[in-house]
């Protein structure tokens, strides 16, 4: 029969405590915690939005322009978390001319912004700015998560997109393993928006943490104790924590529309989305599409992304599976090797 060695456990706990003390001391000395450090310039601004163009890493003539459309939820620094974990740097190194929309931090003045404002307004004007900048009639778009859903709507209703990559993008919001999809269907979003105006970013953070509560509120920090004594590992950990907690409020009306039409009504696959005066039919997407998703994504399960294949009208549809999670697809070592090079190659093949 196995027995429990109490003395060994006490020794282990003592070691844990010592690691803890060392980790806290290291945390007090950390610097260089900035994210989003790839060189870039602002080429267009409107309200709180900024459109960035990144400084090229390859010869001018061979670059393929790509506009990254990030989600309204969380911050796009995830795409350039640190120099050695950066999707954006990877795309630059593989010959792309990268543009990024930073939606900014909505405040009370923005609570009336709708999806029409975001997609047919801001996004369309950013596309025009990129077209002007690169002198092209149509642009390549890389839509990320909710930004991928926006990009699908935009591509289906505008003729300014040449190629589309969707990354960890929900399409069918009602698949059985979509925890967030189940939960949101039971939420009275009108009450939240009518009460708060904008939806607090911290509330969304809490929801995301509750997707894996034991890991994300407990185990992650217990495991971190062992790492924090190493300044480099501590820096990585803190940068990620900063990103997780840097969660903008959501413009109330846009949030209400997105929850109602996408999550609750599953309108993207049911032809029931209308952005402004433009009805969205995924079958109207006839440009080449690359659908990138993560097999262990707890936020947007691959089952929510895969159905895109059945609904788009293009003959040139491909998928790229990544063996990782919703965050790992940007920052893991394997993502650096696999994701940016594959996306860049796909775009370049259709330049």
């Amino acid at each position, binding site marked *: 029969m196995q027995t429990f060695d109490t003395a060994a456990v006490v020794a282990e706990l003592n070691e844990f405590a010592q690691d803890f003390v060392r980790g806290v001391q290291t945390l007090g000395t950390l610097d260089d915690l900035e994210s989003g450090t790839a060189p870039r310039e602002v080429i267009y601004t409107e309200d709180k939005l900024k459109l960035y163009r990144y400084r090229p890493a390859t010869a001018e003539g061979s670059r393929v322009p790509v506009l990254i459309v990030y989600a309204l939820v969380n911050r796009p620094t995830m795409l350039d978390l640190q120099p050695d974990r950066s999707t954006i740097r990877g795309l630059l190194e593989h010959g792309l001319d990268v543009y990024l929309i930073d939606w900014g931090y909505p405040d009370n003045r923005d609570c009336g912004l709708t999806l029409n404002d975001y997609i047919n307004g801001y996004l369309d004007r950013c596309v025009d700015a990129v077209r002007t900048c690169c002198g092209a009639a149509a642009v390549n778009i890389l839509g990320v998560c909710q930004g991928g859903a926006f990009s699908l709507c935009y591509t289906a209703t505008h003729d300014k997109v040449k190629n589309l990559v969707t990354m960890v993008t929900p399409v069918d919001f009602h698949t059985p393993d979509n925890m967030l999809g189940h939960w949101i269907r039971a939420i009275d979003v009108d009450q939240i928006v009518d009460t708060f105006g904008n939806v607090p970013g911290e509330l969304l953070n809490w929801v995301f943490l509750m997707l*894996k509560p034991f890991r994300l509120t407990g185990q992650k920090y217990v495991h971190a104790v062992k790492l924090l004594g190493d300044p480099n590992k501590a820096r990585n950990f803190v940068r990620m924590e900063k990103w997780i907690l840097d969660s903008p409020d959501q413009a109330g009306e846009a949030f209400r529309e997105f929850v109602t039409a996408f999550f609750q009504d599953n309108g993207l696959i049911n032809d029931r989305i209308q952005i402004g005066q433009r009805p969205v039919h995924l079958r109207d997407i006839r440009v080449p599409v690359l659908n990138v998703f993560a097999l262990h994504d707890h936020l947007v399960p691959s089952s929510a992304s895969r159905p895109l294949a059945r609904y788009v009208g293009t003959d040139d549809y491909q998928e790229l599976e990544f063996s990782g999670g919703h965050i790992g697809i940007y920052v893991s070592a394997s993502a650096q090797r696999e994701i940016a090079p594959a996306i860049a190659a796909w775009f370049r093949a259709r330049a």
Partner: protein
Amino acid sequence: MSGDAAAPSDDLWHQVLAADFVRAAWGPLAGDLAAHPALGSLLGNLAAHAAVYATLAREWDAHLDDPETRGSPASGAPSTGTQAPAPGLPVTSDSPLLAMWRPLFQPWLEVVGTTESPHTGKRWGGDCVLALDIDALLGRIQGLAGHVDGPQRLSEIRHALAAFANSLQDYLVVWRDIMATALGRFRSQLTGSEAVPESLRGFYDLWVDISEEVYAERAVTPEFARSQGRLINAYFNLCKHDRALRQAQDTLSAECEVANAHEWEQAIAELRRYLELIRDTVAAHPDLADAPAAAPDGDQTALEGSHANL
């Protein structure tokens, strides 16, 4: 873990339950950390969190022989949802379930509980609700409602509070079921023939793996979504009432200020009329102006000064 057959408990599960890790480890550490109160506090919180789980496990284990709960999902079998009788973990204000729930939900309650009362200067969403101390909450709101728009508002808030309390109770029952199922699987693993962890970290990771596994199964069910949705909707309904209450209170405060200003204007006008009366009186009787004041000597200067002010 070793293969020592002389252990006092009959299986690893009960040995783990019997071992008081927190006390065993915390005792020697407490002295070392005395010079670092902040670190001690942080580590103390972690230890307290661990103790909550240990208490939860012991309480669950103690109720395994309860005839009313025997054969329930405690065995590790999947539950059918919130209606299933979970093993005897009572959902009370001092339950370890609530203590486990608190660190998970406190950030959320702090966010949505941004409903600072202008009167108490305190948030009324946090600990009070978590402790299910609805009476205290009602008392505070009753105090507010008495000043604002009366019994109708109070009745609505009372209903909103009752809905929240009920939904919280239901939600805790869902969690009780999740935790009981997880503990059942954990025990099965420790008492069965499967490989068991070699370290405390291993035990913790196994516990987290099993808990997440059970949670992932349950969190995608309509019952869980419905229960959690009811709780969140009920909480935001409370927030909505609180905001309305505060707006009404602000309006009332503004009305008070207007009323006060009106009283001041009336008082000033009355003083002016009094002043005019004095001047008219003095003008009608110039001899009075030159007469010595009918006051004790020592007060003359004071009276002159007082008149000068008029």
